[in-house]
């Protein structure tokens, strides 16, 4: 057994391909006939937005590597070129399935009176309407580009739609028409020559153009309307062919950005500069005109692998609007409104409740509102001296930001650690960061080279007899909106040791102090990987044939090679390892002599699984930890993360039950096979859908509490969740 080399490539699944399998599981939800139509549509849009980000960051970085002729293999033994080829194949297959799925949903929606009409389906009335609509409301907003005549070529923005067309001067064009023609200004050109023109589709116009009809809702797509009327933009020209296309560009992430730094560190700076904002993917409507396709490929320096022909709607992310618009409630999932948290039932003074004991919060089954309440109350409370908080991603008009502003205006010392490197949210972040500064908050922008991913809040309050420090630590961001969609865990506590640790953590972030050692928490990047490995090793030591060790872990991704190797050693030593990994999993389970005792499931359901929970049996002295960190190299090496223990036995038990609920799921859970594919868990016994069960438990807890309390006093109406 010891002979197995735990570094050998066949023991690892490629990170990118594993991620694509995750996106495929999202796609499966979108294709599932068991789900309401609009709910399915939502999943199908997520498939697209996920892919956009994946291409902008990961594929872009792999292409950087290819350009720099990097031949370094990943832990699974693949070169950048091999990865790119595999990715292209997989995404082509995925896109085709997604398109079919969308078409099927469109077809089914017609029965409910919702019609999205393709260009070929417009009837005469609709055509007339659209022609009028185009010349009145769309045409004035268009800026057509005769691209062949422009030097330098314009930079077409990524993630937007463009209509490309081949036009040719119509016989007998007027002089006036010639003046407005694309060739104008370039002097003598062959009047018979075909030209390629590009019309950007305005982003501020609605993608779905409502068509008047007596019955049902009817829509046409904006890009179709524009394509149909391209000729109107070039009087005297006729349109020979049109195609809609969409580019995905290199997101130009800096090397310091941890999302792709693993790939970019080995790429020369000069290469990175050259490929900055390069096009990495082009989606184009199916069977485009050969001239258009060839022209665009040359222009954007693309290979066949980079071009994705799409049969139906391009840019499915726009369908989110359709899925979310009011109405058609019977086609959506029933709402699961957040419940008042179990640990706060019957509490009317948050401060006092926390002084009496820890509070565990499980969102979105339980409301995120108490966290907002804590902050809002702290902001107005004359006894509160200071508030310190990390903000990674938060919603634009967030009650969290408003509370911090209020607190600073009320003269409290407010320190906010804003992480501006939160991907794709920069612009949004800069806005509210400035607002906080204006309000008088002490805003810090983190530590160079490290992303502050930990979620921590510290409130110092002077009470009658002493100072109390209130702490909130969590697996999810301070974002009241995602807190309704992401499943996350949080702990509110008054525990002195934890408070001292969190205070020291903030001193580290603000540069007030170096690390002085922690009593309860563990912090990345300095000690967290080692801590995880130590915890796993300890489990190995404690494991006996009579009483094998047990590790339960729930994380978004498992990719860190050292953690994976430790888990392989655990499996070899007979430790049972049960993993609930929503996304990337580079560990290969079920390999003889290596990972037979490792079981990996993944759950993709209506809430995004986001909590990180780690359980170790530890010879009977069970330990449960929560963390902001995933088992990924970037989290453990390039981010500031916190791992904290849950010490209240009842809460520890509750977390173990939650973990086991996921492992019992036989509706949404999929199991990772040794070959890297995922398959539905074969349902034995009673049907268990973890998220549904967890939601029902949250409701039940409130109902029981109401029953118990009603006899004595009416329960206050729960605050708005």
């Amino acid at each position, binding site marked *: 057994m010891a002979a197995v080399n735990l570094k050998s490539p066949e023991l690892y699944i490629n990170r990118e391909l594993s991620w694509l399998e995750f996106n495929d599981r999202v796609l499966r939800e979108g294709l599932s006939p068991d789900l309401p139509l609009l709910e399915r549509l939502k999943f199908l849009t997520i498939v697209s937005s996920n892919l956009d980000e994946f291409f902008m960051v990961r594929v872009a970085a792999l292409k950087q590597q290819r350009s720099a002729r990097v031949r370094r293999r990943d832990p699974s033994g693949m070169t950048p070129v091999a990865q790119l080829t595999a990715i292209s194949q997989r995404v082509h297959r995925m896109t085709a399935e997604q398109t079919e799925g969308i078409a099927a949903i469109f077809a089914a929606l017609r029965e409910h009176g919702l019609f999205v009409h393709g260009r070929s389906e417009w009837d005469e009335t609709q055509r007339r309407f659209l022609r009028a609509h185009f010349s009145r409301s769309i045409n004035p907003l268009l800026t057509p580009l005769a691209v062949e005549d422009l030097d330098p070529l314009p930079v077409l923005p990524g993630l937007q739609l463009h209509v490309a067309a081949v036009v040719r001067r119509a016989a007998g064009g007027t002089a006036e028409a010639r003046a407005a023609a694309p060739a104008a200004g370039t002097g003598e050109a062959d009047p018979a020559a075909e030209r390629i023109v590009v019309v950007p589709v305005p982003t501020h116009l609605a993608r779905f153009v409502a068509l008047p009809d007596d019955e049902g809702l009817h829509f046409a797509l904006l890009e179709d309307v524009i394509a149909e009327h391209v000729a109107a933009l070039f009087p005297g020209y006729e349109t020979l062919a049109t195609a809609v296309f969409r580019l995905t560009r290199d997101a130009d992430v800096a090397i310091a950005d941890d999302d792709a730094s693993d790939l970019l560190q080995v790429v020369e700076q000069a290469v990175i500069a050259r490929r900055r904002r390069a096009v990495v993917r082009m989606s184009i409507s199916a069977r485009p005109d050969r001239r258009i396709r060839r022209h665009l490929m040359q222009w954007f320096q693309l290979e066949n692998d980079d071009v994705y022909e799409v049969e139906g709607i391009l840019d499915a992310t726009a369908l989110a609007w359709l899925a979310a618009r009011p109405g058609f409630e019977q086609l959506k999932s029933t709402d699961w409104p957040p419940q008042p948290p179990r640990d706060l039932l019957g509490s009317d003074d948050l401060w006092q409740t926390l002084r009496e004991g820890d509070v565990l919060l499980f969102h979105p089954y339980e409301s995120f509102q108490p966290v907002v309440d804590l902050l809002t109350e702290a902001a107005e409370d*004359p006894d509160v*001296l*200071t508030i310190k908080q990390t903000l990674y991603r938060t919603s634009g008009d967030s009650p969290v930001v408003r509370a911090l502003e209020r607190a600073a205006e009320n003269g409290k*010392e407010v320190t906010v650690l804003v992480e501006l490197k939160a991907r794709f949210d920069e612009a949004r972040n800069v806005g509210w960061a400035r607002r906080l500064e204006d309000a008088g908050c002490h805003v810090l922008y983190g530590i160079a080279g490290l992303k502050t991913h930990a979620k921590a809040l510290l409130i*110092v309050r*002077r009470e*009658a*007899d*002493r*100072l109390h*420090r209130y702490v909130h630590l969590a697996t999810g961001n301070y974002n009241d909106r995602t807190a309704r969609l992401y499943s996350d865990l949080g702990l509110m506590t008054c525990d*002195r040791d934890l*408070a*001292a640790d969190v*205070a*020291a953590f903030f*001193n580290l972030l*603000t*540069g*007030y*102090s*170096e*690390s*002085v*050692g922690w009593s309860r928490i563990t912090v990345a990047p*300095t*000690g967290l990987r080692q801590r995880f490995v130590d915890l796993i090793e300890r489990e190995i030591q404690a494991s006996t044939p009579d009483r094998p060790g047990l590790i339960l872990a729930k994380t978004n991704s498992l990719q860190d090679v050292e953690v994976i190797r430790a888990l392989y050693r655990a499996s070899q030593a007979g430790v049972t390892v049960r993993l609930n990994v929503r996304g990337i999993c580079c560990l290969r389970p079920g390999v003889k002599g290596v990972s037979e005792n490792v079981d990996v499931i993944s759950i993709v359901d209506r809430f995004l699984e986001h909590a990180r929970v780690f359980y170790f049996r530890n010879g009977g002295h069970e330990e449960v930890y929560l963390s902001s960190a995933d088992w990924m190299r970037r989290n453990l090496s390039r981010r500031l993360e916190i791992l904290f223990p849950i010490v209240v036995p009842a809460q520890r038990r509750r977390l173990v039950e939650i973990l086991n609920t996921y492992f019992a799921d036989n509706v949404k859970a999929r199991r990772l096979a040794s070959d890297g594919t995922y398959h539905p868990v074969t349902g034995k016994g009673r049907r268990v859908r973890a998220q549904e069960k967890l939601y029902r438990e949250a409701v039940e807890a409130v109902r029981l509490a109401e029953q118990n309390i009603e006899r004595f006093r009416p329960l206050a109406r729960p605050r708005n969740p």
Partner: protein
Amino acid sequence: MQPNETTPEKPPAAETVAAVDIGTNALRMVIAQVFPDGTIEPLERLQRAVRLGQDTFRRGRLGGQSMTAAVAILRDYRQLLNLYRVERVRAVATSAVREAGNADTFLDRIFIATGLNVEIIGTSEECRLTVSALLQAVGSAMEVKRDATLVVDVGGGSTLLTLLQEGEIVTSLSLRLGAIRLQEVLATSEESPQRSVELLRRNTAKILSTVQTSLPLERVTTFVAAGGDARFAAHHVGRPAAVADLAVVDAESFDRLLRRCERQAPEELVKRYGLPFAEAETLVPALIVYQTFLRKLGLKEMVVSHVSMRDGLLLEMAYEVTGQHDEALVEGIVHSAMALGEKYRADAEHARNVADLALRLFDFLRADHGLGKRQRLLLHVAALLHEVGAFVSARAHHKHSHYLIANSEIFGLNRDEIEIVAQIARYHRRSPPKPSHAEYMALSRGTRVTISKLAALLRVADALVRGHAKEVRHISIERQEDDLVVFVAGVADFLLEQRALALKADLFEDVYGMRVRLEEA
């Protein structure tokens, strides 16, 4: 809002205090709250590396860069002090500042930037603080209280040794053997790394052997290591001891750890153990010093204390907050003073009698002078030592007393306090303080007033003890209008005392506005 309405009865509140320590390779601060029962709850511990020691030990002066860095850090600390609304702060500096030629400039810059009044403390003060925190932490739990215990604190500039016998300090001394000084040797050595470590080890052993004459090392049964590097060792190879703030490291694992660390460059230590660079650099030299002690003492394990001098500072502030005082410490200080008196062959009985009477007067006049326990202690020490100058010469012996006391170490008193004691003793006879006395005028007004108030009491006590009122037990004190009446049992003739009082009560009358009268009881 009317705060009084909402909180009619305030329970006694905890007070927030802070200790700032300007050390040889780092600035550190602890903020804590002290409860009415004296319990201390640390809130924040901060630390930032600044290599003040390197400057001082190399060039005798603090460098501009490190001073600027230190001031910037203290500004941050000030922010945090404000945030917690801390009013009671004690800031101290040790050898790096103490030995620097430009210490005053540095302290002035700190004061201007932060309002922090930094006090330079001596090695004996450092030892005392560390040991009092240690004893407090240990409580009655450990052998420390019974056996001969050696406490070793390897700092950047020096190593402090304290020998405890049954929990009491017997001796303390400091060696010029600091981790930074040693690291300097390592860094500048032309030898191979292994060889220089070997040289370092031999050098350390040599220095330690000089200690043996003054410290009975063979009696030591418990070895306590204090200091950050010892805590590092405890963190990695220690096991918890019976007492929460202590850990035990056995010699074998310690040697193994040190062997591993010796082989690594500071950069590797930073990476492997997450140490700040400055600490990584001095880790090996410091551990070598501990190892040398461990071998010399022939012990199988060492006890590592997680408390530090800063905890000692907190403890003292806690006493101030609660009004309690550490009886053992007062006793230690008094013992130390008596030992000094003995050294200069002062009349012990006379000294004790004067001290007793002076303290009686002090207690009786509490409302008039408004001074506290610490000042009472200073008077006590001054009374015990007022005549030591006679050792030099009987003529103008009060001036010799001043000189001798001012240049002595009195365990548990800081430099400023020793100067006060010296001046009280100086004014026990002849001229009261005058503007022409340069040393007196050099002190702040508040300090001058304190000296006058205390010297006035010492003079009266001394005058009375000259004559029959030796036995303080036999006297009682009363106040009659503007007179302070001292009743002495069984004595009618006060000629001697009257004459002495005529010479010495002048200051008392000035300060307290009362005349001293003697009457038979």
